[in-house]
C-alpha cells in the first residue's frame, strides 16, 4: 500500500484532518503480520525520483537552518482565550511531536509578562547589592570570565496542567503538559558571583534571601532562599550550545533547578541579598496554591515528580493499526532523579515498568518507552513517575483529596489518554 502522504513538492504539511483520515485508511485494513504483502511495485522505489536525479540546496541556502517544511506543524501554540493578550501570556511546547529529552529552543514554550524584549549584550548590566561586602556591576563580558559550568535542567511552569485541576479540559499533551522544556545550559554559578561581592555582610545565611529581578517592563522578581542560591542556581547565557533566544531571556537568565519556572528570571538585571522575602506580586497573588478551605500555600517552589505519555496522545494518534506500538513519554522531578516510570494501558488495573532511554539525571527530563503488541482494542493510557526520594506521582483523586479544586498550580497528577480502536486519543478522567 502506497503512503500517499509523502510527496516531493509538498507546500504545506498534511492537515490534521487529512492525517487522521489517512490513519483510518492505512491502519484499519492492515493485518498484524510482520510484513504485509505488496501487490504492486512501489513507484517510490521503481521510479527515479526528482531528489535522486536533480540537485538540492547549496551550502549557503540557509545560513541558520530551520526545520524542513514537512515539520511546520511542530510549533509552539497558544490558547487565545486563556489570557487577555499575547504580550502577557503563555504558549506550549509541542511535546507530542518531539523525542529524546532536549527541547530545541525554537519550539520551547514561552511565558512573558510584558513581552519578549530585545536587550543586547553590550547594553546588558547585572547588579549585585544589598547585604554584600561590595555592591558590584557586571557586564556581559565580565560574566564570561567566571568559571564556566554546563548542566541540563527542565524548566516547568508552576501552572503546567493547571487547567486540568477541575477536570479534563484541553485535548492534547502539548496543551496539558507543554509548559515545560529541557535544555543544556552554559553559564556560571550564582555562588561564584556572590562570592565575588562577598557575603560576610550577610551574617548567618540560613534566614537570608536573594531577590532576583528582570530588566523587562514586568520587572518580574522573586525571592529565593540564600541557601538555594548558593547550592545550585546558575546564571545562564547559552542553551543547547547557542545563545539564549530572545523569548527565553537573551542575553542572560537565571536557572533555578527543580523549582517553578517563574523563578527563572529572564533578562536578569538585579540580585539583592535581603533579610526577608519581598513578597512580590508573583509570590503572593500568583504562584500561591489555594486549598479547599480558602487558605493558600506559599513558597511552594519545588516541582514534584511527574510524567506524561507524549505518544500516542490526542495530537499523535496511532496511524498504523494493531501490532507493534511504541508508547513513549517524559518524566521529571524537581526533587531529584527519576528512578522509574510505570505505564498502564488499562486505566490502572495493572502497571508495567517502562524502559528508561537513559538513567534519570537530577532535575532533568527522562525519556521512557514501552514497546507493546497492540491488539487494536481501546486503551486507557497512563504513566506514573518515581524519583530517588521514594516519591511516586499521585492520581488526580489523591491530589484533590489534599488540595481541593482551586490550586491552579503544581498539578502533577497522573494523566489519562483514552486511545480508541481507530487509534485516535482523547483527554479523559477515569474512575
Amino acid at each position, binding site marked *: 500500500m502506497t503512503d500517499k502522504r509523502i510527496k516531493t513538492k509538498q507546500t*504545506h504539511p498534511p*492537515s*490534521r*484532518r487529512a492525517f487522521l483520515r489517512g490513519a483510518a485508511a492505512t491502519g484499519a485494513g492492515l493485518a498484524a503480520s510482520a510484513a504485509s504483502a505488496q501487490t504492486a511495485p512501489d513507484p517510490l522505489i521503481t521510479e527515479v525520483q526528482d531528489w535522486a536525479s536533480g540537485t538540492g540546496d547549496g551550502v549557503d541556502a540557509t545560513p541558520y537552518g530551520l526545520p524542513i517544511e514537512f515539520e511546520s506543524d511542530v510549533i509552539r501554540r497558544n490558547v487565545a482565550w486563556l*489570557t487577555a*493578550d499575547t*504580550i502577557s501570556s503563555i504558549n506550549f511546547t509541542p511535546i507530542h511531536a518531539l523525542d529524546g529529552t532536549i527541547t530545541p529552543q525554537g519550539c520551547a514554550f514561552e511565558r512573558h509578562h*510584558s513581552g519578549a524584549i530585545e536587550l543586547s549584550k553590550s547594553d546588558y548590566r547585572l*547588579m549585585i547589592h544589598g547585604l554584600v561586602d561590595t555592591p*558590584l*556591576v*557586571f557586564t556581559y563580558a*565580565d560574566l564570561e570570565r567566571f*568559571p564556566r559550568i554546563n548542566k541540563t535542567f527542565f524548566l516547568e511552569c508552576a501552572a503546567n496542567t493547571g487547567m486540568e485541576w477541575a*477536570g*479534563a479540559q*484541553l*485535548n492534547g499533551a502539548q496543551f496539558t503538559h507543554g509548559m515545560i522544556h529541557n535544555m543544556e545550559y552554559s553559564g*556560571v554559578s550564582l555562588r*561564584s558571583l556572590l562570592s*565575588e561581592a562577598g557575603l560576610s555582610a550577610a551574617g548567618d545565611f540560613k*534566614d537570608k534571601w536573594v531577590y532576583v*529581578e528582570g530588566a523587562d*517592563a514586568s520587572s518580574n522578581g522573586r525571592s529565593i*532562599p540564600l541557601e*538555594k542560591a548558593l*547550592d545550585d542556581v546558575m546564571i545562564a547565557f547559552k542553551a543547547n550550545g547557542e545563545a539564549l533566544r530572545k523569548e527565553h531571556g537573551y542575553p542572560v537568565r537565571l536557572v533555578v533547578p*527543580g523549582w517553578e519556572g517563574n523563578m527563572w528570571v529572564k533578562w536578569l*538585571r538585579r540580585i539583592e541579598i535581603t533579610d526577608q*522575602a*519581598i513578597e*512580590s*506580586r508573583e509570590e503572593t*497573588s500568583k504562584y500561591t496554591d*489555594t486549598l479547599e478551605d*480558602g*487558605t*493558600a*500555600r506559599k*513558597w*511552594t*517552589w*519545588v516541582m*514534584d515528580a511527574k510524567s506524561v505519555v507524549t505518544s500516542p496522545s*490526542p495530537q499523535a494518534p496511532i496511524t498504523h493499526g494493531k501490532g507493534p506500538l511504541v508508547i513513549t513519554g517524559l518524566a521529571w522531578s524537581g526533587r*531529584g532523579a527519576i528512578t522509574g516510570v510505570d505505564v498502564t494501558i*488499562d486505566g490502572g*488495573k*495493572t*502497571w508495567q515498568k517502562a524502559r528508561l532511554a537513559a538513567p534519570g539525571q537530577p532535575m532533568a527530563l527522562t525519556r521512557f518507552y514501552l514497546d507493546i503488541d497492540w491488539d487494536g482494542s481501546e486503551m486507557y493510557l497512563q504513566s*506514573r513517575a*518515581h524519583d530517588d526520594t*521514594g*516519591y511516586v506521582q499521585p492520581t488526580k483523586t489523591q491530589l484533590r483529596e489534599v488540595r481541593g*479544586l*482551586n490550586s491552579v498550580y503544581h498539578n502533577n497528577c497522573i494523566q489519562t489518554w483514552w486511545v480508541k480502536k481507530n487509534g485516535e486519543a482523547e483527554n*479523559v*478522567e*477515569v*474512575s
Partner: protein
Amino acid sequence: MSKYLKLALVTAITTGSLSAPVLAAGLGVGRAALPEEIAAWDKDIAPDGTGLPVGSGSVEYGEEIFSETCASCHGEFAEGVDNWPTLSGGFGTLDREDPVKTVGSYWPYLSTTYDYIRRSMPFGGAQTLSDDDVYAMVAYILYSNDLVDDDFVLSNENFLEVEMPNAGGFIVDDRVVTEYPHFTSETACYEDCKDTVEITMRAAVLDVTPIEDTPEPVIEATQEAAVEAAPVVETPTTVTAAAFDADLAAKGEKVFKKCKACHQVGEGAKNRVGPMLNGVVGASVAHVDGFKYSNDLLAAKDAGRVWDEALISEFLAKPKSVFKKTKMSFAGLKKDSEIAAVIEYLKSVSQ
C-alpha cells in the same frame, strides 16, 4: 520568619551542588556599583515597609488617575475588563468554586500593591508614575475594596496601619508533611489494583489544535483587512493607498513595539486596550466602531477632526497635551524621527 524558611527549605532543597570550583578569593572582575545606580534599580518594597518612598496620595486623586490610566483594562471600579485582572471585591469566595482573588480578598500585604504598580504598571508604560501617583492609586484600590473611606489619604507614615483582610490566609508549603508520606513508591500497586475503570469526564475543549493549518496568503488578506477597516474613505483628507517609504516604515515597525501592548494592526487586528489602528492615518478621530473612546476623542470626532499626519505627530509627542482625557496612558515618543517612522508604518499597514 526563619522557622518558616527552614520548613520551606526542608521541602525544597535537593541534593547536589554545582561542581564549579569554589573561589578562594575574588577574581577582581566587575566594578563597584555606584549609590545612584543602586537607587535607580533598587525599587522593591518589603512587607515591613522597607523601601517605601516618602510621599502620599488621596483616594480622590487616585480615582482620577485610575480612570485615566488603569480603567481601560481594570475597569472604572477596578472590576476588571475581559481577561484583565479584577482588583476589587471577591470577599468570601476563596473557599468556593472559582475564587475571585483580588487585592482586597487575597493579597496578604499592601506593600505588594505599591511595589507592583510602581515597578510594573501601567502595562506598556511601566515606571512612568510618580511615587505620589502610586500612593493615590493604591489608596483608590483600597477604597474600591471598601477598606478605607473616600477621604482617606495614604502615605508612607500610615502605610503599615492598613489591615489587609487576607493577611492570615497563607501557610508555608507543607507538602513534606501533608503529601510526601502518602505519595510513596512503597505502596505503588502493579497487579489487580482496581476492579473496574470507567470514564468519568472527557476533554471539555476538543478542537484546541487547529484542524487546518494551511497558512493564508498573507498579502491579499492584509489588503482585504485594510479595505474593510477603513470605512471613512469619503473623507477628503483621507490618504487612500498613499505611497509610503518602505525603509522608514520598517523603522517605524520597530518603534511600534512600544505601542503593541495596547494596539493591533494588520490582518485580523482587533480592538484591545486601545483601538486597532488599520487605516488610522487620514481617518476621522475615533473612527473604529465598537471601541469605547474617551469623551475628548468623541467630541473631536463630532467636530470633524481627522487623524492627519500633523495631528498624529502632535498626539504621539505628548498625548495628553492634545486630548487631556485620553485613556492612552503612553507618555509619548521623544524623538520626531520615531514619530515620523511610526506614521509611515501605520500608512504601510493600511495599504
